[in-house]
Every structure is written in structure tokens, then in C-alpha cells.
């Protein structure tokens, strides 16, 4: 067996047979034996691989002590140096899914070890790891274990043996969003004509290049009473305090800044200016409120038209900022605003 490839397994306290919710606070532990799903897993590796141990960690502990847990687990993985890392399956369990996802991503990205995990398609951990790990699509509860494990083991086997992994449909994993160039039997024009005929007949057809789906967020409910509402001001127009203390990039922004404006009536020059690289800055530098109208909002507050202007003003630059960064900024800023109890947001863009 010593010639076979090595698999290291991760499970939570429940599947690690430590206990239920009461044990969710346990710290990560390493066991050199095969526990829970890891036990059956080895039998599915066609005698060519062995599970060298099981890491068990409480779901709550992991989620509350992410950095520490990750560091500890990564060190363990480094020591054991497996050929393949396996986590879960987590089905639709949220905290377990996030743990599997974060660990999978860290192992794949930082240690460059191939990873297999399993999740239900709606598991909140999925997006974190599907690009770097093979995530087998599972049912939403542990009843799907018997189906999930063979699929995961089959991928682990191929990864361990250095074999090519087939398509998501063949192997049962969730597409990672990678566009793989392949040679197929039918030439493009024939595929086009067949697609056309299906379309004309009203039959189902599948495009080869799905357009990006813009997920739509339902409009939030309107503010009931403006005179009691706290309004926050945000801009992607790059208005920053003189000297740009946080070094917000003029383009392709990597970060956002927030500045206390509770004691100000306006974002006036020369205390503020624009660092945005995408437009003629003359007008904005003359009167920065032309980009981020703090002055008017303060007036409306004084008049009692709105209750309050939120004490912090948020800013970044829009030009060339990647979609993923924009999403990240929005998520971070939104979280702060939500926690601060802000009722509405004005975002200005140039």
C-alpha cells in the first residue's frame, strides 16, 4: 500500500463522530485513523490510495477562529503532505460548507495540492472554492452520502493517479467556470445548424457561450419617513481628503476609504480633491461636492428634510476596477452601513 497515493481527509465534529451541536466549538484535531466518511472512502480508491488521517474541527470553532484554524490545518496538511486533500461532503450545511470551502481554497491555492469536496449547489461555501477545487454536486442532506462518496473518490483517484478529469457532466462535479478548449466530433457550422433547427422547432437547445447572468437584486423597501432617516453618501468618483491618506488608486482601485464628515458642511476644496484617473479633474477639484454632494445633504438635514447624514463618507474609484473588487467593496461597505443602521444610500459615479 505504501506505493499508493496519500489522501488527507477533513470533516466536522459531527461527521468526525465527536458529537453534535454541543461539540461545535472544538478545536481542530488530527487523528491518524480513518473516521466517518474517510473510512469508506479508502475502499473506493481501487486499492491505489490510502487515507493517512482525518482532521476534525468544530464548525463554530472554525467560523469564529478562521485564521487560527486555517493556519493550524495548513500546517497539518504540510506535515502530512498528501497527494490529494478531501473535505466533506458538506451537503447544504452552511457553517460546515464554509469551513470546507475556506480550507479547500487555502490548500489548493497555498499548498498547490488538488482538492475534492462535495456540496449542495446552494451551499454558501460553494463560490469560495469552486474555481480551485472539484466540488461534487450533492443532495441537500446527508442522505446523499452514498452517492456523493463514490463520485468524490473517483475524482480523488484520478487526481492521485495524475489522470485527466472529465467534464462536469461525466464526473459529477460543479463546473468551475473554466472554459476548456476541446475538439469535438461535429464541426461548428453543423452544431450551429442543429441549434437553429432546435430553436425553430421550439425544442430545448444549449448555447455554447452563455452570456453572463446579471443576478438581479430586488429593490429594497423604500424609506418610510425621510425626516427620521440616516442617509449615507458614497462615491466611486475618487473624492479623497487632501494628501490622499489611504492612497486610493486613481484607477483599478484595490481598496476603498471612509472618512468622518460629521463635523463638516461640505467636501470643499482644498481639503478634498479627486484622485480618479478617468475624467478631467478640473471641475471636481474646484468643487468636490459636484461629485459627492455632501453640502446639499447637510442642508437637507438642517432643514429637517432628512433625519441625519451618516457620519462616514465612503469613497473609491470606479475606473478599471475589476468586477470582483467592486463586489468586494460593496459587500464590505454594505455590511458596515447595515450594522450602523443606515436607512438609505446615495452612490454617485462619474
Amino acid at each position, binding site marked *: 500500500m505504501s506505493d499508493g497515493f496519500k489522501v488527507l481527509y477533513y470533516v466536522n465534529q459531527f461527521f468526525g463522530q465527536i458529537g453534535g451541536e454541543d461539540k461545535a466549538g472544538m478545536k481542530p484535531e488530527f487523528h491518524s485513523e480513518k473516521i466517518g466518511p474517510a473510512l469508506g472512502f479508502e475502499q473506493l480508491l481501487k486499492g491505489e490510495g490510502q487515507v493517512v488521517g482525518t482532521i476534525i474541527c468544530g464548525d463554530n470553532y472554525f467560523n469564529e477562529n478562521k485564521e487560527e484554524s486555517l493556519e493550524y490545518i495548513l500546517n497539518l496538511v504540510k506535515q502530512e503532505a498528501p497527494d490529494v486533500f478531501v473535505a466533506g461532503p458538506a451537503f447544504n450545511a452552511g457553517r460546515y460548507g464554509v469551513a470546507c470551502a475556506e480550507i479547500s481554497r487555502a490548500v489548493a491555492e497555498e499548498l498547490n495540492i488538488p482538492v475534492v469536496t462535495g456540496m449542495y449547489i446552494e451551499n454558501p461555501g460553494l463560490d469560495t472554492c469552486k474555481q480551485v477545487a472539484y466540488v461534487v454536486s450533492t443532495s441537500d442532506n446527508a442522505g446523499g452520502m452514498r452517492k456523493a462518496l463514490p463520485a468524490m473518490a473517483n475524482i480523488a483517484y484520478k487526481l492521485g493517479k495524475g489522470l485527466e478529469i472529465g467534464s462536469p457532466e461525466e464526473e459529477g462535479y460543479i463546473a468551475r467556470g473554466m472554459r476548456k478548449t476541446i475538439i469535438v466530433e461535429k464541426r461548428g457550422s453543423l452544431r450551429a445548424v442543429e441549434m437553429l433547427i432546435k430553436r425553430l422547432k421550439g425544442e430545448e437547445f444549449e448555447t455554447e457561450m452563455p452570456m453572463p447572468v446579471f443576478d438581479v437584486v430586488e429593490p429594497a423597501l423604500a424609506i418610510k419617513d425621510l425626516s427620521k432617516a440616516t442617509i449615507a453618501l458614497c462615491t466611486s468618483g475618487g473624492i479623497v481628503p487632501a494628501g490622499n491618506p489611504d492612497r486610493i488608486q486613481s484607477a483599478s482601485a484595490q481598496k476603498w476609504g471612509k472618512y468622518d464628515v460629521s463635523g463638516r458642511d461640505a467636501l470643499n476644496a482644498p481639503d478634498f480633491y479627486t484622485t480618479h*484617473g*478617468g*475624467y*478631467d479633474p478640473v471641475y471636481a477639484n474646484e468643487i468636490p461636492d459636484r461629485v459627492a454632494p455632501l453640502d446639499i445633504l447637510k442642508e437637507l438635514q438642517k432643514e429637517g428634510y432628512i433625519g441625519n447624514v451618516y457620519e462616514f463618507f465612503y469613497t473609491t474609484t470606479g475606473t*478599471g476596477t475589476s468586477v470582483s473588487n467592486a463586489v468586494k467593496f460593496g459587500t464590505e461597505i454594505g455590511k458596515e452601513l447595515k450594522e450602523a443602521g443606515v436607512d438609505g444610500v446615495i452612490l454617485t459615479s462619474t
Partner: protein
Amino acid sequence: MKHLIITNNPLVAEKYENVLWTDGSVEKTLIIVRDFIHQGYELVSHPLAASLRMLFSPYRSIIIDKKKEKLNFEHAQIIEDSIIKYKKHMDLRKTDEKTRDDYKKIDLLLLEAALSEEQGKWY
């Protein structure tokens, strides 16, 4: 002259009078074009060429039209998308400097083809 040519190609700058010469990269040239579009100028020629090979060109000339009252949203979107597309390619690649003189010539010839399409129009 009705049109303005924004270019970093010295051959174009030598040959034409209505030129805004940008002493810099293609990306910088595209960004200058964008700034003009944001001020209300319109695109006459598309900011990108028609082949991948031409993306390697260190030179690019783009024709823009007179300033209009209102910003042309479609053109603003085209130039923004073009910059994204250009950057996406060139983040991984470099301009092809070895044959830069040939790129100069071809950029000029493609520009001339575009200008000839625009002859005899006034709108």
C-alpha cells in the same frame, strides 16, 4: 477639419494636421479618447482593431467627431468596453516592438481606409 485623430503613431502625426498626438502607449491613447468621449465628443472609428494580431500593435489611431451637446452613452460604453478588452489582453501580453515600423505603416493604412469611408459626409 471636422474630425480629430487621436494617435500615438508618428507617421499619422506627420501626415495629418487635425491630430492630437499622444506621446505614449495604446492604452494611454484609448484613455485620452475616453476623456474626449466623456466631454461629449463622438467616436468615428471603433477603438479596437479587427484582429488579435493588431492588439500587439504599439500604435493606434482613433478618429473622433465634433463635440456634441450631450454625451453619447453608446460611444461611452464602447470606449469603456474597449479599454477593458484591451487591458484584458495586454495584461498578459506585450506590444510587439520588433516590427514596430510595420505596425506604424499598417495603422496608418487602416486609418486611411476609415477616413475614406467618412468622405463626403456632413452630419
